[in-house]
């Protein structure tokens, strides 16, 4: 039996399958090596990197909610230099595409990150975080304003030779407006959604459960919202869309592909089932075989409207 064709193309790059891991849920890849054959994945999106190391928010940083979790990690990361020297050597050997998620609090920081990472061997693409809601200066302004979103996209694209994926925030009135803006700014793809802003209160102490007071909601609870936004954006732009938001099973992944996503990212599910991403790759292969499709690309955008 021949292997089912799961290949997809984004920004001129061919991915062996459409299953990527979402930034901030998969460490720098190595953390999941005991559980997953990393080379079976379509790609790994690593923890968001800023120019300087970031300490992140004080604890408590996470809280469980119905069908989901809130986090306010605060973009803790090792910074660009340590990422290049300590994390990249391992990532070069994992046998799949490495996408580096970047974040900054100024246009210049995004530019520098784009430029420096373009010089590093072993990176396939950049995913630009313009939407992380946790840090006051952490890019929320870029992600919620079409003009700023376009400007930051343009800045990264102008200084980088890598394909640029822009990760969108759902905490906006009309996400298609932002998607069109980053497309105009030169993005080769958009990924969505980042976490939804949320909050939880301990009624005994009357205090917020997160030290940061508010945090980002993720997990199965947000999937219907994410799916709706992916569907809307897929119709609004010509560039490929990468679907993110509560994807936990093969069926979830298929829903996003049908809604128009060319690829998907598995996020919070990695915490619950460290093998989730690989199981979804296997599930998609079975789906293609069982339905006698020529390839997974036949599923993309295959939603049948009533």
């Amino acid at each position: 039996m021949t292997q089912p064709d799961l290949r997809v193309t984004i920004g001129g790059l061919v991915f062996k399958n459409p299953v990527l891991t979402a930034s901030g849920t998969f460490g720098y890849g190595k953390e999941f090596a005991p559980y997953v054959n990393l080379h079976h994945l379509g790609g790994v999106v690593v923890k968001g990197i800023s120019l300087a190391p970031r300490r992140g928010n004080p604890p408590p940083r996470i809280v469980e909610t119905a069908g989901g979790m809130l986090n306010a990690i605060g973009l803790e990361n090792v910074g660009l230099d340590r990422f290049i020297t300590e994390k990249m050597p391992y990532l070069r050997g994992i046998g799949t595409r490495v996408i580096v998620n970047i974040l900054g609090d100024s246009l210049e920081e995004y530019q520098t990150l784009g430029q420096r990472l373009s010089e590093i061997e072993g990176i396939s693409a950049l995913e630009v975080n313009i939407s992380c809601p946790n840090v006051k200066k952490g890019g929320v302004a870029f992600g919620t304003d079409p003009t700023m979103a376009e400007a930051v996209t343009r800045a990264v694209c102008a200084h980088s030779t890598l394909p640029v994926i822009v990760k969108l925030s759902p905490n906006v009135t009309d996400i298609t407006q932002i998607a069109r803006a980053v497309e105009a700014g030169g993005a080769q793809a958009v990924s969505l959604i980042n976490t939804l802003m949320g909050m939880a209160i301990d009624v005994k102490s009357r205090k917020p459960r997160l030290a940061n007071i508010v945090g980002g909601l993720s997990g199965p609870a947000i999937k219907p919202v994410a799916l709706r936004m992916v569907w809307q954006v897929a119709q609004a732009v010509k560039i490929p869309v990468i679907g993110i938001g509560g994807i936990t099973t093969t069926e979830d992944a298929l829903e996003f592909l049908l809604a128009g996503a060319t690829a998907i990212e598995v996020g919070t599910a990695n915490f619950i089932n460290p093998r989730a991403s690989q199981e979804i790759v296997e599930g998609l292969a079975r789906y293609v075989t069982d339905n006698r499709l020529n390839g997974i690309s036949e599923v993309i955008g295959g939603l049948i409207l009533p």
Partner: protein
Amino acid sequence: MKQYEKQAEIVRQEQLTPEIFRLTLKAPEIASTARPGQFVMVRTTPCYDPLLRRPLSIHQTIGDQQVQLMYKVVGKGTRLLAAMTSGQKLNLTGPLGHGFDLAGKQAICLVGGGMGIAPLYFLAREIMRTTSPPKCIVLLGARTATELGPLPRDFMDIGVTETHLATDDGSVGHHGFVAELLPQHLAPSHQWTVCTCGPHPMMKAVVGQCRQHGWQCQVSLETMMACGISACLGCAIPRADLSGPYLHVCKDGPVFKAEEVAWL
């Protein structure tokens, strides 16, 4: 360090007290590699409510086949665990984190409070097995005698000759805090290493005693945690000097030298 994700069959589920349960699981890969102080992440349901795994310290390994966990029913996840019976399967990841460091330690005192006693039993067994002659004092604290259940007896059964108890209500042992027992029982003639696990105020008091008397101290900490494998970064705790990058309980711990972390 090797880690595994396994479907583990429940061998035995015992109710020790109205709230405390002991679960024995068949998990050979984890049993044969786990060290005292390490933990596993337990998925309490195949569904998504509750969503996250629960971190539970390893109470003991039995031979190279079985892993025993002890837990208190505090919420939905542990209530689901308590309802499970032998023959059913649970998904575990582990063994995770760094355990206690016994290298070169001669005189060891274990101080446990409430569910914090769970990992200390594994440690006591290791001490009795590897140090000769074993010099090990165990101090156990709980709210009531009922809450201690069979644990004091369990320590005696493995040959710990000196076990002292403290309860909040005085129903057994010293009427007061377990940390108050330390100066009473730790002879100044020995260079003690104190290993402690329990509620934060208890450990803080133990750390204070150790600092005062110049004893080394290792603490096993618990925090909210989503993944247990250093991906979510949810389990951050501040360093002793309150600066620099946060420590992460799942990877840098759960056992720390007391002086590494901040005691706020």
